[in-house]
């Protein structure tokens, strides 16, 4: 190919990209059809790779590496026993407050709406922005469903694109994420936003407010219209001032990205249940 044609091809590609970027300004919530199509094609590749390695791992762990399995089984049996007792006690306690039929149906709905999903990928542009799950539209996953880690702590919410068998979750540590939160002790209301480094900022707390303390737990407030109230989010790690009207409060989210193998997607709107 001649030199001029090479540069013309480069120019064409650059212009095509600039056009693609410019049609997304101002930033919309919806991904382009092209982006959806690529996600639908390569989402299953991620899914396949993770399934392959999980298969290898489980073959190794199930048939060869059986050291300490007996001890782990006993520990899990003990934990299951303890959780069953706790579950029973809490159910009985709930029955004291609400009618039996009402509570049974509520518990059945909650139990039905938990969808366990495996994390198959992490955001390729910025690690603390989003994750990909191995459950998609056919499993009932829809936009704005909330996602919790295995300890029931907030991870994020489902965002577009959701393909047939895979979906994307915006983490609470993303800079574009906003979660309505409240502090545990004095119920100070604020908005939690990611800082792109794996931590979050509790925003809009004025400097004169002395009620937020270090090491205090932060819970969802339910005021954002997406997340139900009372879900543990993280803990205040530092409180400072940045010369602004508001305080600079850093919150460490509870979820740990390196320990995030399985998550729970709530397919029912928990706000309707509470």
């Amino acid at each position, binding site marked *: 190919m001649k030199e001029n044609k090479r540069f013309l091809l480069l120019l064409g590609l650059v212009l095509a*990209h600039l056009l693609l970027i410019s049609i997304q300004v101002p930033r919309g919530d919806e991904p*382009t059809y092209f982006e959806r199509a*690529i996600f639908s094609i390569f989402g299953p590749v991620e899914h396949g790779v993770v399934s392959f390695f999980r298969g290898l791992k489980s073959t190794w762990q199930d048939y060869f590496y059986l050291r300490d399995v007996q001890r782990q089984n006993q520990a899990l049996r003990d934990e299951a026993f303890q959780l069953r007792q706790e579950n029973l006690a809490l159910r009985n306690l709930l029955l004291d407050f609400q009618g039996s039929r009402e509570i049974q149906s509520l518990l059945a709905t909650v139990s039905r709406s938990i969808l366990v999903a495996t994390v198959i990928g992490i955001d390729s542009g910025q690690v603390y922005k989003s994750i990909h799950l191995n459950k998609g539209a056919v499993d009932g996953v829809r936009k704005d469903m909330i996602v919790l880690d295995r300890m029931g702590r907030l991870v994020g919410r489902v*965002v577009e694109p959701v393909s047939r068998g895979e979906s994307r979750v915006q983490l609470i540590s993303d800079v574009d994420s906003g979660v309505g939160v409240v502090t545990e002790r004095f119920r100070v209301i604020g908005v939690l936003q990611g800082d792109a480094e794996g931590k979050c900022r509790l925003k809009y707390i004025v400097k004169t407010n002395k009620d937020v303390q270090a090491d205090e737990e932060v819970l969802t407030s339910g005021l954002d219209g997406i997340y139900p109230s009372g879900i543990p989010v993280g803990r205040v790690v530092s409180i400072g001032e940045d010369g602004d009207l508001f305080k600079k409060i850093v919150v460490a989210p509870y979820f740990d990205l390196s320990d995030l193998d399985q998550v729970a997607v709530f397919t029912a709107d928990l706000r309707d249940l509470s």
Partner: protein
Amino acid sequence: MKRIIEGIAGLALAVVLHTILGKVAAPLLVLFNAFSWVVLYFGLTRHDVFGALMGTACGLLQDSLSLGIFGVGGLTKTLLGFGAGYISRKINVAPAARTFVLVLVLASAELFLWKSLVLFLFGERFSAAGGLVFLQPLATSLVVSVAFQVFRRREARSS
């Protein structure tokens, strides 16, 4: 036809490497960018036109697996692939040290351009991941230099 199959295999390899790295440890994704490896490798071995096309494909693929502006990665990786291919056609990049320096400069330029576009055009905060991101060009040049030397030895043996 052979080139197309090579290109598709390169794309699939980038996704596989990216997925494995993410499963091993999430911070590794800040240090190792498998999409850049593939683009630079094809740029150096198949030159500018194929490098630019692989840059477009890998960049858009990276964008589609990320919750950001679709097209920024595509743009920077197109320039990266074209740059690597164009320079490798103009000067002899066969010596290992020369490959290393060239890839280091190109990977640093691509990272700078990508972060600048995201920062200035869309006002997104720059994420340095505790400074780990600044080591990404170094890791990229190490991996690509080794891969390029392996390619050259295989070529020399087969000819």
